[in-house]
């Protein structure tokens, strides 16, 4: 499908809804021609009761029917496995029912954008506590509201986190729950990270911004094709024969 027209301020003219349940928080956000409204609650174990009602509230407040949505998005991970599937299922069901494309937004990219918008810094290292002695992590360059992944998202022990090769001199900011493991992180990494936003959780607000931009660039797929990204794929061991 052709990308929708842009306004003079380069804000995609479109209407998108994003859902996220990837952490102990859950959130929904509505993008309507560049205006963003959002709901965010920290409500562990209540995602299934809060997520879709928040989305309905946002649409009702904006005076928009669901059919006004051009596309849907959700926090595709990494994060809590069950949370990812709650958001995936709800967003897939909505997109399928409305016959609209779906976009999966990285929770790490969302954290990077949130940090960038908060501190206006350009080099961001999001890290989420993945439990079992590991973090989900990635590195981003952020500029003018856009985030670019450097290298790949990964799951690894915090002891093995490094700054992107050749970029050790930059002033990095850490964001996300993974940075609570600061004490075990290697000294060279600590030396390159000026500050940490440990309390920042992935949220639908940043996701809907990233999704609107991606949608304007022509992204978005049939809902069943947009699967969660768990990063941790070794979850069971085959029996030996």
């Amino acid at each position: 499908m052709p990308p929708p027209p842009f306004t003079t301020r380069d804000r995609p003219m479109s209407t998108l809804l994003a859902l996220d349940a990837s952490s102990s928080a859950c959130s929904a956000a509505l993008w309507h021609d560049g205006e963003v409204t959002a709901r965010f609650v920290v409500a562990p174990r209540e995602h299934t009761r809060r997520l879709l009602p928040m989305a309905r509230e946002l649409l009702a407040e904006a005076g928009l029917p669901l059919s006004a949505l051009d596309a849907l998005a959700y926090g595709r991970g990494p994060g809590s496995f069950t949370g990812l599937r709650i958001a995936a299922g709800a967003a897939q069901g909505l997109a399928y029912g409305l016959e609209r494309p779906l976009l999966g937004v990285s929770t790490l990219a969302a954290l990077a954008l949130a940090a960038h918008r908060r501190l206006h810094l350009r080099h961001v290292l999001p890290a989420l506590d993945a439990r079992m002695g590991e973090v989900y992590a990635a590195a981003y360059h952020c500029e003018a509201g856009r985030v670019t992944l450097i290298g790949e998202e990964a799951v690894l022990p915090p002891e093995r986190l490094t700054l992107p090769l050749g970029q050790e001199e930059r002033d990095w900011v850490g964001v996300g729950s993974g940075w609570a493991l600061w004490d075990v992180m290697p000294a060279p990494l600590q030396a390159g990270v000026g500050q940490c936003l440990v309390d920042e959780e992935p949220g639908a607000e940043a996701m809907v911004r990233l999704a609107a931009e991606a949608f304007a660039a022509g992204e978005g797929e049939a809902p069943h094709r947009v699967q969660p990204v768990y990063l941790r794929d070794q979850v069971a061991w085959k029996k030996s024969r």
Partner: protein
Amino acid sequence: MRVLGIETSCDETGVALYDTEHGLLADALFSQVAMHADYGGVVPELASRDHTRKLLPLVDEVLAEANLTRGDLDGIAYTAGPGLAGALMVGAATAHGLALALERPVLGVHHMEGHLLAPMLEDEPPAFPFVALLVSGGHTQLVEVQGIGRYQLLGESVDDAAGEAFDKAAKMLGLDYPGGPRVAKLAEQGDPKRLRFPRPMTDRPGLDFSFSGLKTHTLTTLRAFEAEGPLDDQARADIARAFEEAVVDTLVIKCRRALDQTGLKRLVVAGGVSANVRLRERLEHECAKRDARAYYPRGRFCTDNGAMIAYVGAQRLLAGERDEPGVFAARPRWPMDTLTPPETN
């Protein structure tokens, strides 16, 4: 009323379309059994991941089979429990997203009520009231069914489910998961007279079951054979036969008691183990003796499926039951006797 049914409580993704006027329109199933076989049993996280991949393509499949579009759906039903929490969540979330988009009512239904009423999808459904034996890898229950939502638990397993016992026996005999059909196949070669295993909890009144002792007895017997030398194929077959006979005999004795106790003449047998040939033969024989009749769902509705969920959902949605829009919950443990008839809601 055309209802989409979604089943994701364990290791099968099931989707079906049921029409309250025209009956079952379409059903589709994706079984993960082969995937879990590599791990020797169901891995919940892998099951959940696979449901997320398979569910919408199956919805597409049943709509295409029925020559309908998503807008033709009048309601959506999903399994809310009991089952694996993470797996249930996939069906619940997707059903609610879809219902919101289509502005249709949605309802979470009880998985075991689905199994109980699965024979209603057949051409000659049983009339109410009847006794139902639900026997699968997760459940062994005897239920008196007076009508939809009017269930009285007569007895259940106090430990392992019968299907679980089959799987464990299979493992001991070196057979792959799922073990039920493999034990039954091996038992065909067994000598029924060589060994006799105990029939747990049949020597006293009551309708409860216990199968964990049988598991121990199987192990002890195996060890005794192995102490005398390598286990030959005939010995394995004889053990399988004795094990199957004990499980089947126990189930038959309790069914007979349940029919006596209730005075009912109709017996519904559902769940994965109801596919066991020996069990069916014995129950047929038992029913014939007392002028009773046994009813079974067709083969593919004995195990988990979307059709039974669509059927139950349709009955209850038609009566006006529904979830609050956008608000769902998985109920991994959901006692069946808390269900009520659709009319009173």
